[in-house]
C-alpha cells in the first residue's frame, strides 16, 4: 500500500494506492474519487462477530459509536483484484497524520478523528471518565489496536509532543496519543477556573510517549456560532 497526504495542512486528503487485493477501511462518506477497478464493501462500524447475536451486538455498537462517539455507523472497505487508487477526505479543515501500529502498541484517537485504517486494525470505544460527560467536552476515545496503519484527521494543524513526565492539554485539542501514556481528565484549577477560565476540561498525561494535538477546537467553534444563530 502506498499513501500520499496532499493539500495539507489546511485541506489535506489521503491518496491511497492499493496493490492487488490490498484493503483499506475508511469512515463512511470519506471517498472523493476511486478507480473503477476497486470494489466497495459497506459494513457496520463494529468488529465482525459471527451469528445472529453477533449482528445484534454489532448494530448496538455501531449505533453507540454514531450517537456517543460522533463517528459514522458504517465503514467502507475498498479493494480489488487488480488494486487501484482511492482518495479519502475528512469533513473539517485540517491535516492528516499516519501512525503505524506493531501489534503491541495501541493508539487512542479522539472520536471524529478517525479517517481510515489498514484491514487488521481493530477499534473500540473508550470513555475518559465520568467527569467528562458534563461541560460538553466529553472525552470519548477510540482505541486502535492491531497491526497496520491508522490515519487520523485533525481540525487545524497537528503538533507532535514527546511527553516525558507530565503534560496538560485541553480535551478539545487532543488528536491522538500513544497507549503507553496514562491520562486523567480534570478541570483546570478550582471551581472558579472551571466556570470562568474558558478552558473547560483538560487532560493530564503522564509517562513517556507521543501525543498529537490540533490547533483548533470543534466545541469552541460551536460555542462561538451558537450565540450568533437567530432565535
Amino acid at each position: 500500500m502506498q499513501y500520499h497526504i496532499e493539500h495539507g495542512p489546511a485541506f489535506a486528503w489521503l491518496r491511497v494506492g492499493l496493490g492487488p487485493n490490498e484493503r483499506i477501511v475508511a469512515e463512511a462518506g470519506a471517498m472523493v474519487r476511486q478507480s473503477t477497478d476497486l470494489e466497495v464493501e459497506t459494513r457496520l462500524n463494529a468488529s465482525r462477530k459471527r451469528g445472529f447475536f453477533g449482528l445484534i451486538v454489532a448494530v448496538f455498537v455501531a449505533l453507540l459509536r454514531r450517537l456517543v462517539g460522533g463517528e459514522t455507523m458504517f465503514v467502507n472497505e475498498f479493494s480489488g483484484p487488480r488494486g487501484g487508487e482511492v482518495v479519502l477526505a475528512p469533513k473539517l479543515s485540517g491535516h492528516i497524520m499516519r501512525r503505524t501500529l506493531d501489534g503491541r502498541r495501541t493508539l487512542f484517537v479522539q472520536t471524529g478523528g478517525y479517517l481510515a485504517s489498514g484491514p487488521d486494525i481493530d477499534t473500540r470505544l473508550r470513555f475518559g471518565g465520568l467527569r467528562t460527560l458534563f461541560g460538553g467536552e466529553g472525552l470519548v476515545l477510540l482505541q486502535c489496536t492491531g497491526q497496520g496503519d491508522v490515519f487520523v484527521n485533525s481540525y487545524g494543524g497537528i503538533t507532535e509532543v514527546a511527553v516525558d513526565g507530565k503534560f496538560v492539554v485541553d480535551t478539545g485539542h487532543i488528536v491522538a496519543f500513544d497507549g503507553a501514556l496514562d491520562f486523567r481528565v480534570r478541570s483546570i484549577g478550582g471551581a472558579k477556573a472551571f466556570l470562568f477560565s474558558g478552558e473547560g476540561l483538560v487532560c493530564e498525561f503522564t509517562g513517556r510517549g507521543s501525543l498529537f494535538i490540533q490547533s483548533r477546537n470543534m466545541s469552541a467553534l460551536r460555542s462561538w456560532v451558537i450565540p450568533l444563530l437567530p432565535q
Partner: protein
Amino acid sequence: MHFEIQYRPAHSLATAHLGPGESVRAEASAMVSMTRNLEIQTDGPMGRGGLMKNLKRAMLGGETFFTNTFTARGTPGHVTLAPTLCGDMVVVELQRGEPLYIQGSSYVASPDTVEIDSRWQGFKGFFSGESLFFLEAEGTGPVVVNAFGAIETLDLNGDIIVDTGHLVAFSTGIDYAITKASRGWIASYLSGEGLVLRMSGRGRIYLQSRNPNEYGGAVGPGLPPRKG
C-alpha cells in the same frame, strides 16, 4: 480583461482588471470591493431585465442563479471577488466549442466572451434531495472557479468514480452516469457517499478536497435546531 488570484489556497481572492468599456460577470454576492467607475447590472436565470419573469422563477422553486455584470466606464477599473467558503480558485481558459460544466456554487466569474447557461439540466431529477445544479460555460476566455478546500486538476483518459460533493467542474469529452457507491443500492445509501458518478472519456476534471455537505453534517449536530 484579466484575472489575478491572490491568497491561495486557503482564502483565495480573485481580482478582475478591466480596461475602459470592458466587463466581467460574477456570481451574485461575491463582490468584495470595486473602483468607482464600475457600473453593475444584475442578471437572473431568465436573462437580463425580466424582473417579473425572474421573480416568478424564484417563487416557483426553480434554480435561482443570479449574476452581476461589472462594466468599467471611461477609465480602467477593477473588482475583487470572494466565494463564501474557504478554499482555492483557479482560472480555466476556454476555447470555442469546448464547454466547461461547473457545479453551480463553484462559479465565480467570467468575461462577456463566455456564455453562462444556467438552464443546462444534465444531472437533474436523478435522486430527490441531492439534485445537482451545473452551469454550462462556453466561449473563448477565462473562467474563474472556486473550491471548498484545495483543487485537484485531473486529466482523465479512461474512467473513474467521483463523489459529486467533491466535483467542481469537468470539460467536454467526458461522459458520466450515476452509479452505486457500494455493492447494492441499500449499501450505497449506507456508505454515506451520496450521489456518485462514473465518469469516462478523455478530458479534465476539477475536484475539491472538501465536501460542503459533509462539513455541514459535522458542524451542524450540536447546534440548536433552526426555527421557522
